[in-house]
Every structure is written in C-alpha cells, then in structure tokens.
C-alpha cells in the first residue's frame, strides 16, 4: 500500500511554511496566556508577549483567593466539581435506560417521545433561563434547620442544567448504542436471559466507553457553565470557577492583575483539556452521528 508517491521537496517546504504559520496562529493565544500567567512584572497589564522575568506568584495568589469575593479557590473548585460531576452522573444514570429502549425496540409512542427529546435538544439552554429562574425561585426547601431558596443554590443550578443535559445524554447514548451489534443480545436471549439481565450484563459493559464520553461531555458543560449560575447564584460561597473567571475579566474585574486572570484560565482548562485529548476520537465520532448533536 505504500507505493504512493511522496510529495516533492518543493511541495514539502511550501506545506511546512503554511503549517508553521497555522501553528503560530493556533499557539499565539495559548502562549500569550501561559506567558502572562508566569509574568513577574509589577504592571497589572504587562505588554510584553514573552515575560522578561518569571514567577509562580500568580498561581499562588489565585490558589488562595482569586477574586475580591470572600471565597477561596478550593471552595470554588469544589462547587464546580460538585455541579459538574452531579449533573453528568444524574444525566447518564437517568438517561441510559431510555437511550437503550429507543435504540433497540419499536413500541407505541416511540416516534413522539423521540421527537420530544430532539425538539428540546434544539433549544439552547439559555432560552429556558426565564421559566427555570421563576419556577425554581418559587421553591423553598425546609429541612429542619436548613432552609434555602432552591433557585439560589447549587442544587437548583444543577436541576436547571439537567433539564438540558438529560435530553443530550439520551440522544448521545442512543447514537452510540445504535453502533453496538445486536448479536450478543440475541444470543443471550436464546440462552434464556431476561430483559434486565441483557441490559445490565451485556449492554452496560459494552457501552462503558459511551457512558464515559457522555459523562465527560456532561461534566464539561457543568464545569464551564456560566449563564445559569450567573443568573441564579448570589452568595459567594456558592460561586463556581467559571463565574470567578468572568469576575476577573469583565467589567467587575477592577484591578485584577492579568497574571492572576491568566493563571485562573489555565487552572480551569488543564483538567478538562487533558481528558478531552484522551477521549477526542469518541467525542468527535459521537457529535457527527446522524447529523443531530
């Protein structure tokens, strides 16, 4: 198969120049933010693209208290982690059953129910902020000493998020399950396995990569969720990393040093970027299945 002719040297050089230019364009913002995060300059907004002296002071500062709000980095990270993991876990756990029967069986109402899921998928989550805000705002939770407004809590933001991530999880999982051959299930049914046994002992183990990818995509949207948390949460103890990052950038950033903002950007990105790189192949495959999300 390797008898195809290789490109000529002239072409090779032209291609390399083009690709190096694209590499420069891709790396420019990344190098700028990495350089900024290590910049030891006293200036709040250093101009140089490559820092003249380097320190990890910005990281040390951000790791303690990134914004003017009385909330530590650990608290912010814990809130983001709880929100992201909770949303992802619930979506996958609740959605996988529906995804399985949509993928494998014909039954009365299948088309209508699938249509309902796809229709919701089309809506951006921001289009439902108004009713979710109003409805969750009207719920007061009283548990002994604990009393809080559901809207003004991470739990409420999580519920509002699941409203969008659950239909996505169902659809995404269905897309993956469609690609798993049916032979094993049929063999198991002939051997006398019942419906639940097939699902728990054959489908779930086979679908493990799909479950992992769907969990990760849910985690990613929770980890970087902004609009709902920004609208719902008013107490700094509930704030998330994404909210803090905007507090360090937007009109409320005040005199936040750009080195701190850059360090925060990197601390927020690195964990999810590493996992994304590992799952990249499956994620891209899933997004293009059938042309719908």
């Amino acid at each position, binding site marked *: 198969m390797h008898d195809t002719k290789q490109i000529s040297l002239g072409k090779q050089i032209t291609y390399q120049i083009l690709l190096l230019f694209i590499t420069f364009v891709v790396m420019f913002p990344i190098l700028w933010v990495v350089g900024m995060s290590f910049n030891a300059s006293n200036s709040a907004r250093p101009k140089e693209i490559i820092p003249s002296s380097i320190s990890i002071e910005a990281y040390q500062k951000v790791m303690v208290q990134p914004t003017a709000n009385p909330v530590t980095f650990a608290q912010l990270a814990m809130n983001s982690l709880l929100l992201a993991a909770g949303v992802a876990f619930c979506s996958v756990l609740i959605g996988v059953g529906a995804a399985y029967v949509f993928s494998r069986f014909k039954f009365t109402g299948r088309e209508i129910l699938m249509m309902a899921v796809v229709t919701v998928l089309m809506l951006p989550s921001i289009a439902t902020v108004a009713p979710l805000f109003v409805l969750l705002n009207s719920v007061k939770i009283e548990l002994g000493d604990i009393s809080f407004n559901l809207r003004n809590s991470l739990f409420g933001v999580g519920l509002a998020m699941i409203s969008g991530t659950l239909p996505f999880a169902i659809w995404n999982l269905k897309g993956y399950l469609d690609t798993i051959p049916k032979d094993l299930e049929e063999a198991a049914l002939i051997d006398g396995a019942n419906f639940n046994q097939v699902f728990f002992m054959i489908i779930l183990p086979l679908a493990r990569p799909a479950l992992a990818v769907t969990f990760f995509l849910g985690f990613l949207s929770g980890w970087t969720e902004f609009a709902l948390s920004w609208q719902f949460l008013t107490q700094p103890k509930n704030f998330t990393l994404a909210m803090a990052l905007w507090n360090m950038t937007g009109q409320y950033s005040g005199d936040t040093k750009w080195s701190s903002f850059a360090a925060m950007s990197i601390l927020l990105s690195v964990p999810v970027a590493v996992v994304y790189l590992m799952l990249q192949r499956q994620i891209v495959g899933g*997004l293009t299945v059938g042309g719908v999300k």
Partner: protein
Amino acid sequence: MTVSLNKNETLERPSDFQAWWNRTSKNRIIYMYLFPSFFVMSLITFYPLLYEVWMSFTDYGIQNLRADSAPPNFVGMKNYLDIFSGGLAAKVPNFNFLALLTFNLVWTFSNVIVHVVAGVLIAVLLDADGLWGKGIYRTIFVLPMVIPSLVIAVVWRNMFDPTAGSINAALASIGGLVGLPAKMFEIRWMEQTSYPIPGIPLTLSFFAVLIANIWLGWPFMTIVATGALQSIPKDLYEAASMDGATPVQQFFNITVPMIRPAMVPAAMYGLIATFNQFNVIYFISQGGPLRKTEIMVTTAFRLVNEQRLYGMAAAFSVLVFLVLLGLTLVTNRITKATESYDA
C-alpha cells in the same frame, strides 16, 4: 342476565387478563425503562417550556417574584408585538428584531463557510504523503477544541484590549518593521462604531469576534475531513493523474464529492452551534458597540439578567425556538438530500 353467564365471566377474566398481561410484558418493561427519563424531563424540561409559553403572554416582571406577590397580568400578544415594533426598543436601546436576526444569520454563515473551507484545506495539507511532523501538527491543531470555549473567549477578550492586548502589540511590531508608528495600532476593536469596510455595515468588533470564532471553529472541521479523506481509495487519484487530471481537478472531482457525506452533517452541526455561540459574543464583544454584534441567545440572556423582563424574555425565547426550528428543518432537509451521495 343469568348466573351462569356471570360465573363464566368471572372465571374467564383472570385468564384473559393473564394473557393480556403476558402479551404486554415486554411493552411494560420498555415503559419502565423510559419512566425515569420522562418523569424527570416532565418536571424540569417540558413543564418549564410550557410555563415559558404561558409567561410569554403575561407581563411577568420583578414585582411578581416574591412568593406572596400577585400573579402577573395576562397581556395577550403584547410582548410579541413589542418585540417586532418599537415597544421593546423603548426599554432596550438600539434593539431591532430584524437587524438582530439578520446579524445572527450573517454571523452564522460567515463563520461556518470559513470553518469548512479552512478545515478541509488544512486537512488536505495534513494528508500529504511523507509530510514531516504530521503527528505534531495534528496534536497542536486540536488544541482550540479541547480548551473550554469560555476560557478561549475571555482570553481573546483581553487580547483585543486596545492598550495592553497582544493583538495590537503584535500588529505594532509587524508595523514597526516597515516603519509605522506604534500609535497607529492602538485599535479600539470593541468600541469603534464606524464601519471599517465602506458599504458593509459590520463593525470592527464583528471582525474581532469572527477572528476569535474562526480560531475556535476550524479544527473540528479538519478532524471530520481528515477522517473522510482517509477513507478515499488512493487508486482513484492514481487513475485520475494517469488520465492527466491536475491536482486542482482531482480536488474538485474526487476529494470534494468523496468527503461531502461527512462534511454536510458536520457543517449543519456547526450552523446550529454557531447560531447559538453565546460565549464568544457575550464575553468578547458583549454585543457591542450599540448592540451591533448581539445575537439572539445573548439578547435572551440580557432580557432576564439585566432588564429582568421575564415575560418579555419568555416571548423572545419562544421566537428563538421558532427560528431554530426553521433552521433545523432546513438543515435536516439539506442533510437528507445529500445522503444518497454515499453511493
């Protein structure tokens, strides 16, 4: 009515029921598997959506938020009429629905066209046989996809800063090579209201968010195109070049038709995703200046978050939904129409 008949019935019913019960046992278990999803979605997805439609016919505002406050007034189609006529513009300066929708579509198509063209061309470059550093390039080019778009957006926002941003700094150092003063490159990307290209009513901030979103969007198309390119049999090109086809002819007559089935669904996904690209607009240009780069989702969010007109926001969201429904129906039709190309 005789006793015996009744007796017969009571005798037969359990067996009828048993038969029905057995016959439907598979359906029952199917609905049991559906129940968790649809129960949760009914509560937190479908009910809020119906509630949103109801809200869109009321003047729901901040005065109705308290638990003991009076219910909002029913105002019929007023919110919708206000959106289309000047009613909302009185509360939200520079709001114009038609201009907003037009800009949203211009934003979407200008992005996706560049994403697809750049994505395919770069994929073709990377597919060349014997290219040095192929693996390194592929790893680097995926970076814009793996970094959260929220972070990318805030980083670009600061890069476009007129005095300390790296874009102006880079432009100034390039300009310095040909003797242009650095003062020339204190470009106010986000505030300049005049149109940089005469005759095209798009602000400099549009080009700034376009640049940022192109940076963000093309790698996805390259990855999809790379997958499709690798499935093209190499002998097609060999046969074509033996017949004297130039590389450009080969590209348009072999490559393009062969990767089209993969690229069309990816482009349709890109259209919907870009139409709703909240992060890039909200964080970089913030819709400015004068709301000239606002798109529909950022407007919907501002109606809730800044204006606090919940009823109006609901009506606006219903319109967003209808526009998206139209867009999806069109894209699905295009996807279906091109499906047969597989053969």
